[in-house]
């Protein structure tokens, strides 16, 4: 696995944050969810963001996903400063550059799996005939080839997360962001999802940034661990070294 990782990517910077701040106002007080955070993530890296609840992991992920805007500082992804993008350009960025997987899957319950996976293609204005073919392939890739017409409520958690992954990958993003992807799954199903994420990283060369509470999982699959506390970066280390210590 290490050999494969060493050979992939071109070493360019995929994500860079400079003095990134995201403060929330709670009544009179100002909460610094992300505070003066500067880091760089290379292309095709598999990075895990770790930290206690409220440490700012998810806020940082939302800022990188272009779902939220920084209070100050900058987030530069693939050369674009997200803070400077117009709303419409930010939507295009989320559509084309980023794929997102959530802890609670976030599939639209009234739609079938096929319709859920098809949604980003509709926003990307892909022709109807082409869409169906792409969706079928994406669902087959995550092992849901026989469940196109099922609604999310008819599937297990693992299946729902696989469908969410198929949806995240449908527009071939460069950056895959996962917010606690195994948080609602048992360990075996969680491992299956992690294998899929690893496959995306290794065979498709995607940069993967994963927020997780499970340190063991992070150490096992990611090559770099970034620890946050109170919105600040407290540790940034190579996972291979940690893995070596643990395993």
């Amino acid at each position, binding site marked *: 696995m290490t050999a494969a990782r060493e050979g992939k990517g071109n070493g360019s910077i995929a994500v860079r944050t400079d003095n990134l701040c995201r403060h929330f106002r709670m009544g009179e007080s100002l909460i610094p969810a992300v505070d003066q955070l500067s880091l760089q993530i290379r292309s095709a890296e598999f990075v895990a963001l770790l930290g206690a609840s409220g440490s700012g992991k998810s806020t940082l992920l939302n800022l990188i*996903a272009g779902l*939220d805007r920084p209070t100050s500082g900058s987030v530069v992804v693939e050369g674009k400063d997200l803070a400077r993008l117009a*709303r419409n350009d930010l*939507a295009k960025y989320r559509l084309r550059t980023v794929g997102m997987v959530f802890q609670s899957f*976030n599939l639209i319950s009234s739609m079938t799996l096929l319709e859920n996976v098809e949604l980003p293609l*509709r*926003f990307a204005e892909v022709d109807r005939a082409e869409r169906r073919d792409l969706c079928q392939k994406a669902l087959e890739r995550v092992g849901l080839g026989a469940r196109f017409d099922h609604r999310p409520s008819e599937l297990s958690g693992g299946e729902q997360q696989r469908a969410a992954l198929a*949806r*995240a990958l449908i*527009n071939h993003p460069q950056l895959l962001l996962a917010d606690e992807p195994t948080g609602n799954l048992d360990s075996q199903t969680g491992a299956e999802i992690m294998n899929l994420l690893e496959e995306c990283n290794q065979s498709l060369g995607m940069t993967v940034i994963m927020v997780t509470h499970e340190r063991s999982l992070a150490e096992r699959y990611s090559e770099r661990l970034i620890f946050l506390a109170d919105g600040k970066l407290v540790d940034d280390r190579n996972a291979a070294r940690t893995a070596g210590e643990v395993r």
Partner: protein
Amino acid sequence: MKAYDVAELALRNLRESVLRNSLTTVGISVGVASLVAMLSLGIGLQQLANRRLAKSGLFDTVRVTSRRDLRNLSREGGENGPDAADSPPLDESARRKIAQLPNVGEAYPEIRFVTELRFEDKPHLTVVAALPSSARANDAFEGIEGRFFSSDSAQEAILERSFAQRLLGESPKPGANDSTPVTALLGKPLIMRYGERTALPSSSPGSANQTDTAYSVTARYENLTIVGICDLDPDSMRGQSRARVFLPLKLTEGLHVMDPSNLRDSTNVPGSSPTYSALEVRVGSPQTIPAVEAAIKQMGFDTFSLLDATKNLRQFFAVLDLFLGIFGSLALTVASIGIINTLVMAILERRREIGIMKAIGASDLDVGGLFFAEAGVMGGFGGALGAALGWALGHIINGGTNLYLKRQHIPPAQIWFVPWWLVTSAIFFAIGVSLVSGLYPARRAARLDPVEALRYE
């Protein structure tokens, strides 16, 4: 997002909350139905009034008289055309020329005389008038008992109801006609006694002076059959005296009746070509009356017509339609608030869904467009349903009104009319109002913060 994808997703979302969206759509349809109903009533009443006016013949008729007429002695100078001395006679050739003028439908002589009619050996003195076959369309004959003349030269007569009652030996009571079985007169014979004018050969042969010629008056009888009884004299507004009995025009012309009450007729000499005391000229539409009158005056005749009342009528109905439209729109305004409410509720319910869509790449335009399209689809369905409902409502009210009129012994009338342009405009108006109502919810949905929306459970 492509337009058909927006439409497909909008329909799909509407199906998800089918009860609420159906109720909103019914709200719109009630609004549209009330608008269609109100405007149809306005249009129907306007058409009814126009039809009545057109049928009355009051506003599409020009009465033409000769300037040589003794009744025109007081006339000062020619306002338009030659003086009385140079004025041509109002004879058959003049009638033909007038009939060929542009916008003129027909020109026929006005024949009206006082004579004696015998019914069951009892004499009755009254005014008799001749009617052309085109008078069949006049609204005076709409509620006719019996029928109109079978031909223009049939030996038939139509009686005015009060005269018919007189023949039956009753005194006419206005508004209490129903009790009298006037229909008993239909098919009964009526004898008209009249004086026929016939030219006599010149008393002094070789004389150049035409005034020496003479005519004789012969007492004659004409056997007529009563075929119809009508309520009104169709020419009562125009004649010198109100006629009570009507005869076909060709038949009356052929009788050469001498009218002792007509001074000009008494002194006129009957020749090979008859001259008329007056002509009735029917024009295509009331708007063409001034042009036709001017053309006839140029020919050297006098004309008389009533002012075009339809112009004022149109103005009145424009105001009426506006008011009815405003009242009809009130329900649609309430319905549009219903749309806003439904969509705002949908935003609250689908907050998380909006967040998901934004997270996976939907733009503000995609999200807003979806809500906007949902408003438009509800408007389209509501508009179509409302137009159908308005149309059905119109038929029901029309039927109910006619039932009431029938019970009151009033002839039925079409007071309701739904033109196609109203149906299509109502549907487009409903879509327009719905889209405007959808603007605020669509904007609100588009501006939702995706992070906040994703947190929503």
